[in-house]
């Protein structure tokens, strides 16, 4: 099957972002936290994207920020996937009170927008990387739970699962060897969407000042640092904003393509 142009562009851009995030230390022209220029300089040969509110090189901070943003989003979406898929499959294979209990719990968690829940929880917990990843992962796993449960319910009634049960295979065999391989393709497509959601979520939290704390930085935090410049016509805040937008759109293009190839199961954006 021929890849559409949009998917090629999306894959290329996503790959480029991953490369930058992986090798940030070697690519960035200046250190992350040293004021190398004057405040809010425009783009020049020395500072390609200009300097920020206290004279740090924006390009370098963008590159280091890519590392934090992509790392946090990736780990939390992996966590949400692991948890959501495991409990979803468990609910589908065991049925009964485990299924009812887990499903009602997820209904309860999804009854309130994730951002509101996150804000309530983060008002108590310490703000560090591990807490952020856990909170985002757990909140987002509800959506994966619903999808993987729906997919797995269809699979558990298949003859080969029945056969495995009659052979006397254990629960973990049925989940990992029978259901998982057959549920993989819709889940992979969903992963792209969850990853974007995690990028937007961590950026929003950091923008609100409740995400990544200085001296570490991410794109949402950079928008926050430089937002006051906009009033004086300094476009510094737009650079990280554009980075978020381009990353989200690139991954979206890839996810759309995978989705159109596999199935019509698509998780909503949701609160």
């Amino acid at each position, binding site marked *: 099957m021929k890849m559409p142009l949009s998917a090629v562009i999306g894959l290329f851009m996503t790959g480029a972002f991953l490369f930058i995030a992986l090798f940030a230390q070697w690519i960035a022209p200046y250190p992350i936290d040293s004021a190398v220029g004057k405040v809010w300089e425009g783009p020049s040969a020395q500072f390609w994207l200009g300097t920020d509110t206290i004279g740090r090189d924006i390009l370098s901070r963008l590159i280091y920020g890519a590392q934090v943003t992509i790392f946090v989003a990736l780990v939390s979406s992996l966590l949400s996937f692991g948890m959501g898929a495991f409990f979803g499959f468990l609910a589908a294979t065991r049925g009964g009170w485990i299924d009812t209990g887990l499903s009602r719990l997820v209904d309860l968690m999804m009854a309130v927008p994730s951002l*509101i829940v996150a804000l309530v929880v983060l008002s108590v917990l310490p703000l560090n990387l591990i807490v952020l990843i856990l909170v985002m992962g757990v909140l987002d796993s509800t959506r994966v739970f619903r999808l993987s449960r729906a997919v797995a319910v269809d699979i558990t009634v298949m003859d080969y699962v029945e056969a495995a049960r009659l052979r006397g295979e254990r629960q973990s065999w049925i989940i990992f060897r029978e259901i998982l391989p057959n549920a993989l393709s819709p889940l992979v497509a969903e992963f792209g969407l969850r990853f974007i959601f995690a990028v937007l979520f961590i950026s929003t939290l950091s923008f609100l000042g409740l995400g990544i704390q200085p001296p570490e930085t991410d794109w949402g935090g950079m928008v926050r640092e430089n937002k006051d410049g906009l009033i004086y016509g300094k476009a510094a805040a737009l650079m990280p904003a554009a980075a978020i937008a381009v990353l989200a759109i690139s991954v979206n293009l890839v996810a759309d393509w995978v989705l159109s190839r596999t199935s019509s199961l698509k998780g909503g954006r949701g609160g």
Partner: protein
Amino acid sequence: MHPIVKLVVQRIALGLILLWAVSVVIFLGVEMLPGDTAQAILGQSATPVALANLREALGLNEPALTRYFNWLFAALQGDLGVALTNGQDIAKSIGSRFGNTLFLAGCAGVIAVPLAIGLGLIAARYNGRWPDKLISGVTLATISLPEFVAAYFVIFVLTQVFPIFQPVSMVFPGMSFWDKLQAVALPVIVLVMVVLAHMMRMTRAAILNVMQSAYIETAVLKGLTPMQVIWRHALPNAIAPIITVVVINLAYLVVGVVVVEVVFSYNALGQYLVDHVAKRDLPVVQAVGIIFAAVYIGLNILADVIGIVTNPRLRNPK
């Protein structure tokens, strides 16, 4: 009892139970997390005596269940307690801010809903051709932007490139309605952008779904123009799913409003919430969190009820 009334009553009762469960989670669940309110207020360097005194004063030594029920009954009577940081009455602080939030979200809804349905109709009319592709492409781009990113692009374009608006939205009591409208213009534009895409896509999908029916083919064959077919035959049959989507997106607006208020320093509920999360003022966060949850759950119930009431199969039972 008419089955439709029964369904509606059931749905509302379910929503109220859900809201109660959410209040339990927001209160007791948060209590269980590691963290100490007294420590949070006084900081790490607090002396043990000061901590004990503050715990006593805040009633933190009582069992959590007792405190939950005290809080719940007070909240039901409109008493949400006082803020830890400045000792002000929370219900009073929320009152005026809630009005501001509703004003902002309401303006956005009034503009976004007709616009989304109109664009959805056009996209469905020219399905697969350039107007459809243009509308779908642009909305796909806005769907993948977080609210604050969209907001800063709008600010930059409309205050710097074309200086039409002020970048800050101040509303204060005593402003005339017209002045208020002007003050919220920018945040409203941003909110419309954020919710438009989803509503428009679902409208388009709902119409295209109906377009498969046999009676649409009849309408086409008897010589109606495409717009007449959509307007007279497709839209009335797609109206129930469209209304449901519209209401769900209005609920989504509740979340969007939090971030947008912070961007524009708009003095309303979302800004109040975020400020007090940063200050770790738990009573305020819990109260505002419950209000947002209640609005969200309420709108979702409304969507379901409209879905039930507009469904002709349920309205005329066999």
